[in-house]
């Protein structure tokens, strides 16, 4: 109760300010057909999903330490792959598939799509090994390869629902997690899906729902 008091006071001020500044114009321009206002839901969902992204430290192929949520997820549209360099099954084909996706995204001018590949075999896959792996596949900037503590990586996999204790390495290995953090929209798709299909999926996510053009003008009008 005690901590509630100043909050209520500040809310009252906001409301008073809001009424005097904004209520009349807002009511006057309220569209008759129900406005599109996804911002609140997206913000809420994005906040609610944060527990799925443990902010654990990971190390990039360039030996830079980054935080999973703060540096890799927050505010990003991204494709997340789990792999390991000794993988002789899916990863051997998924990684080249993702290279085609990256090329296609660049060709279509899709900026701001991040790709991250996290090893599930961090003992073997040191930053140096990952760097060599990335260069072998001619990976372009905008795609990071990450290693870290095994327990931290497992925690990330559990958060993203791509962890199966019965089959730690192979299970879900070829499932890509694709999402947009700010809107809380996340989906999973097979890593061997046609590059075109993956690209379409990512592009519809970048085009979908944020609609910054519209929302920007709406906000500006207020």
């Amino acid at each position, binding site marked *: 109760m005690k901590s509630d008091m100043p909050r*209520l006071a500040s*809310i009252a001020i*906001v*409301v008073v*300010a*809001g*009424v005097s500044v*904004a*209520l009349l114009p*807002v009511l006057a321009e*309220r569209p008759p*057909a*129900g*406005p*599109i*206002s*996804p*911002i*609140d*839901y*997206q*913000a*809420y969902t994005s*906040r*609610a999903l944060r527990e*799925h992204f443990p902010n654990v430290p990971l190390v990039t192929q360039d030996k830079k330490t980054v935080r999973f949520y703060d540096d890799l997820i927050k505010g990003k549209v991204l494709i997340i792959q789990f792999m390991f360099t000794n993988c002789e099954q*899916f990863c051997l084909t998924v990684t080249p598939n993702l290279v085609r996706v990256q090329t296609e995204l660049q060709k279509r001018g899709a900026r701001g799509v991040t790709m991250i590949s996290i090893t599930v075999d961090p003992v073997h896959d040191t930053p140096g090994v990952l760097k060599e792996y990335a260069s072998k596949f001619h990976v372009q900037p905008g795609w990071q390869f990450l290693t870290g503590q095994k327990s931290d990586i497992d925690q990330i996999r559990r*958060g*993203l*629902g*791509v962890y199966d204790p019965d089959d730690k390495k*192979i*299970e*879900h*290995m*070829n*499932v890509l*997690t694709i*999402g947009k953090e700010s809107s*809380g*929209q*996340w*989906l*999973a*798709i*097979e890593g*061997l*899906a*046609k590059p*075109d*299909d993956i690209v*379409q*999926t990512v592009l*519809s996510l970048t085009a*979908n*729902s944020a*609609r910054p053009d*519209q929302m920007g003008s709406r*906000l500006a009008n*207020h």
Partner: protein
Amino acid sequence: MLNRRDLIKLGLYGGTAGMLHLTRLDSGVLAWALDEVNRNSGSEWKPLAAVTPFTQALPLPPVIQPVNPSQLPGVQIIPGATYYEVRMREGTAQLLPGMPTYIWGYQGTYLGPTFDARIGETTVVRQHNDLGVTTIVHHHGGHTPGISDGAALQSQRVQPGSFKDYIYPNDDDICATHWYHDHDLDFTGHNVFMGLQGCFLLHDAVEDELNLPGGPGDPAQQGKMPFDLPLVLQDRIFDFNNQLSYNPFGHDGCIGDHFLVNGAIQPSVRVANRKYRLRFLNGSNARFYQPSLSNGMPFHMIGSDGGLFSKAADAKSFLIGPAERYEAIVDFSKLKVGAHVYLNNCMAQTNGRAPDGLSSFCTNAHPGLDGIGSLLRFDVVESLRDPSTFTPGQTLRPDLPNFSSRPVDVTRHWLFERSNGAWQINGQFYDPNRIDARVKLNTTEVWVLQNGGGGWFHPVHIHRNQFQILDRNGQAPGPLEGGLKDVFVLGAGDTVSVITYYNGNAQVGNYVMHCHNVEHEDMRMMMRWTVS
């Protein structure tokens, strides 16, 4: 002094983002909720306010009223068609005590309005997308042209701020309990979880003649519940702010711990001591139910997904998988006024893999994650004359189409299995750009649906047609699977053969078949097929 709740009611809550929220009550709810999340982050887990079961009245989604096509600029004019206008939009619903729940709904209500149409009556629906996400509207069960079917294809998407006119010829074989729901590519699970579902009922003359409860000869009294009730079963999860809590990373299937019928948690319904027609629709993402009545009364089962059976059959309980429909007559006439009967779920299920099994004791007012307990209470409150007619075991539809008497043109095999980290059909994930079967008009096909194992259940849904089950694991179908169906529960190791005749010159184009555990569907356990 005003608290936040009062401010919300007045539409005056500012929230963290300030002025924007003054525009809408709905946005105010989320601002309030976001504030609560920020305030509570790091603090101890807080329980949800509990619903006192059976205190809310069973909601009845309103029947949508037609509009004049002149109100729909540019709409295609079809002689004799009935026109409707629907807005998919945000709204709030008082699902739990305290803070309202933010939802997405057709017309902004948690369960959309019910469509009522006659066989042969064309329905045109203009669906506006006022949401911030793309949507696709699927008429589930309908014999619909591909362009209006609402399959998960990029080309079928209704973009935010845009609309689409769906044209349903409703030239199905017989009357049925269909429904409509979202079918967006990759996001169906989230969209339907938020409330994008509704009933679509088809009627015909044969049904009228039967004089079943709630038919044209048995109208409801003014202001009272009708004698023909849809019962949409859903399970949901809420966060501690009473908001729907969908986990997009829960790929095995979303299992809830709160149980709704027609959009209210464990409601009660006032009935007379007479016969009722109940239309069960499993609108859950991944949960199976086994409904039974607490006093041991039977369900007189009269129909499944695609309409009435040829003959009624009694059942003490029945399995209903995601997206399945079953219709039953329940007769309260032997009960005294003042009696209570509980609709119980006896099937336990705690994850999306499969139901855990039947419970013999299922009268539990507080079902938990396993789902065992009472979903709805019938309160017998009055005596009423019953002009409807029904005799257990009676003949209903001697006119059911008999596809199995036709020569088979093509047989196709479909294997549903867990593979490569998710679930595939014939070793492939869904690619909206790939066609896996091309069906020719006016041919008869048998599709053999096989569960590849691993203990997973898959309720398989095929668009466009109703089907007859030829056999389940080599055995003739039981009485509840002898009618027309569009969802087939593939239990662990099951093989089900289904047959249909692909008629209808308008019904050409793209369709899909998929698992209706919608999380499996979103993981692309789906295939595209065409009719030409």
